[in-house]
């Protein structure tokens, strides 16, 4: 069981439906999930790569700072993992890309989705 710390930007991949429901309701304690957080400066560096803007445009999302967004569609997750990440992946932020890919993999395997709390 994990408690998501929202003081930093984070990406969460819940492992079961109960945790998905909790996230939808704004509850962050006792979750079954894979999640990673990073500094706000790192977030803006990733913004600078244009990756999230690309996702926003391609999938009609609104990923932004101080906002919440989620991707629940398995096909989109697979495309992001196999296609979109590769276009933007860079050495400077390698740990971010690896953690992000790991979360997406969890979401695909568990049939859930990923939540952005930026």
């Amino acid at each position, binding site marked *: 069981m994990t408690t998501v710390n929202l003081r*930093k930007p984070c990406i969460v991949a819940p492992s079961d439906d109960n945790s998905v429901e909790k996230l*939808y309701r704004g509850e962050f304690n006792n979750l079954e999930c894979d999640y990673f957080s990073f500094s706000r400066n790192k977030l*803006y560096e990733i*913004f600078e790569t244009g990756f999230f803007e690309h996702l*926003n445009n391609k999938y009609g999302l*609104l990923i*932004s700072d*101080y906002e*919440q967004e989620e991707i629940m569609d398995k096909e989109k997750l697979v495309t992001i993992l196999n296609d979109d990440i590769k276009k933007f992946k860079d050495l400077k932020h390698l740990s971010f890309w690896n953690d992000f890919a790991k979360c997406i993999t969890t979401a695909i395997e568990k049939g859930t989705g990923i939540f952005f709390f930026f």
Partner: protein
Amino acid sequence: MPGRKFTSTTNYRYGFNGKEEDDEVKGDGNQQDYGMRIYDTRLGRFLSVDPLSKKFPYYTPYQYAGNKPIWCVDLDGLEDLPSTALNKYGEKQVYEITSTTEYGSAGTLSIDVRKKTPSHAQPVTKGMNDIQVYQLAFNRFAEPGKHLIKSNQYIDERLMKAEQQVEYFYSHNVPGWSKSESATRTIHAATTAALFSGNEAYAKASVEQIKIVDTWDYNINIASLAVSFAPIKVYQNINSGLARLSRVINRSASLSDKGFQSAWGTGDLGATMDNLLGKDFSKISFEATETGKVVWSNEQTGFKVIQDPLNKYFRVQNKDGHYVGTDGKQVVTPSNLKGKAAKDYQQQNTHFNY
């Protein structure tokens, strides 16, 4: 040229730029009537102040054709317009000023410029939405001369009005904005640097200045607008700053397109800040995010108010990073709401238009 003089057998009255010569005043070719002002060809200057000097604070009011006599002509002693541009058919662009209007308290002037010929030329802003027009105006203002129009386009009313708004933004948000040429250029350079190079000290100085001159409620809006744009951090050059600004504006357009805001409630930004952050400004810190938001926080109360001045909404975070209502309390989702309906409830009750 010295020693050469054109003599017409028909006493042709017009000279340089097609304007009527006033030869009887100062001798041949030394004075011309531009309609709105008299031009001294020996000085390369007009003899009176430009009636549109309010619109062009970065120029001396006596300038001719925006100090760009090679590229531009001066129509009637009012303003510079490019004369060398040819459209794709090799025709010369021709403009005429059809009217001028004064706008109340802003004191700005609007010029309704219409192109006489050729008829197939298009306005620069054709096909652009308002935000794109604003961006173009901003780019033209930030980098004068770099964003020239295409040869088969003409500058139209929408762009000119957008440029006026950009100027208005500068003149109302930049302390010390001056109409004198040298001061204006210095401030323009400093402001552009602040806008695109992350000069937070300058931005904060702006806010301090603004705080002095007006009321608190007004301050919040104007100061945050200045702050949100000023520290947009740029590491390379002005172009990446413009790209970043473009992303901010695109996000705004996207927010508008998706219609989220219409589902949100309204909130009193000033009252929320007073209640959760306190009224002592010395205890409130702020920072501008790279997406154009302003985060106001008070470490003592632990609350943050995240304001999006461009899109006119705000959110509140408690010390744990949870989004809460304007009363600082967590929003509890009704038990009958599931899935996305639960999320929508949370979103609608933690976003506040103002």
